[in-house]
């Protein structure tokens, strides 16, 4: 049994220590925000935060995650009570199919928690590992810029 701290809640998980975090999130913890894209850490759809850092959950085994703080897109807010990053993505309508979006948001969230005053250039550079096939990149960048402004303006990241 491994205990994982996901979005502030402890989950005891009965899974092989080598199991990638993504599978545990989706199958055991029932959090389906993080997506399986490539399974190789090359597309970013599975991105979540561990201790404030963006990681590929599809290639991170749960054995290294005991006692570390895992945050998924569900940890940013709910449809009824959106967090600043989610509000910005809704305001900019920054999704087409939406499959890459939770990963995009978590990588952006990690950046803004580290550097709340990140410039657009820094945002673009930080989001490099995450791919979007629909082509909503410009809206995504605008949403993150907006989220940065909201957070700077006093909102919590």
């Amino acid at each position, binding site marked *: 049994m491994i205990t994982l701290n996901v979005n502030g809640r402890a989950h005891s998980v009965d*899974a*092989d220590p*080598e*199991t*990638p975090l*993504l*599978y545990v999130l*989706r*199958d055991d913890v*029932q*959090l*389906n*925000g*993080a*997506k*399986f894209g490539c*399974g*190789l*850490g*090359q597309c970013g759809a599975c991105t979540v935060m561990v201790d404030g850092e963006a990681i590929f959950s*599809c*290639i991170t085994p749960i054995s290294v995650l005991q006692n570390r703080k895992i945050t*998924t*897109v*569900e940890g*940013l*807010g*709910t*449809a009824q009570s*959106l967090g600043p990053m*989610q509000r910005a*993505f*809704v305001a900019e*309508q*920054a*999704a*087409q*199919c*939406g*499959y890459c*979006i*939770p990963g995009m*948001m978590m990588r952006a969230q990690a950046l803004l928690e580290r550097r709340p005053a990140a410039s657009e250039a820094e945002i673009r550079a930080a989001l490099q590992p995450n791919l979007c096939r*629909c082509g909503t990149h410009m809206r995504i960048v605008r949403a993150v810029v907006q989220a940065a402004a909201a957070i700077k303006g006093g909102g919590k990241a």
Partner: protein
Amino acid sequence: MKITRLGGRQAVKITRREFIAGGGALVVSFALPAPLFAQGLPGALQKTPMLDAWIRVAADGRITVFTGKAELGQGIKTALLQIAAEQLALEPGRIELVTADTARTPNEGYTAGSNSMKDSGTAILHAAAQTRQILVAEAARRLGAPPERLAAQNGEVRAEDGRRIGYGALVAGQTLHVRAEPHSKLVDPAAHKVIGKPLPRVDIPGKVTGGRELRPGSAPARHGPRTRGTSAKLRRAAEIRRACRGRENAGRAEDPARRQLSRRCRHA
């Protein structure tokens, strides 16, 4: 179309709209022969002509609209809701839309080729308009007033003297189990309240909160080759990464296997 002079040469600028209009004209010349459209019903009503396949009104007034097309992020849930809401004289938020459910919706085949609005949108447009006409006609019968003196508004039919009946009270059993007519009394575009007005995409809140938007109505999908342990794909990826350490420059190696591994390494 706009003709401008650029560096002494004439350039013709065609707007996107003009281009599409031109393309449309081209398509018309390839239109299929008339007998295929013998039924004369608009859009996907040709294949699924019963009104209640598209729209249901519950006794408590809840409205459900059905489409065989899937939301893929192109925004059709929002657009179809706008069409139905306009013709039913309702707020879009008061309509439940069921998409591409083999047990419940019309079978509309692929969601592709920009056909969703053309086929499903047209069907819903006319089905909703005809549903409204049926509701108004029934209200006219009950209120003893001519239908043209009645107005459908916010889920009820109102008479000039203030009497009103909710949509739910106007339907019973088979009221909407009727074939669509070829022609509908559509809302005058000049009076549109919903169509043509911006409406935030209804699928986006679910997509930014880990909701079920990507799997309408179904249990959470399981992704990936296995649910536990290490998958073959992951093991292979790890092997390649291990083998790759320090070998990025082996591309010029004599051994073809090493050259191949080196090529793979760049993507590992």
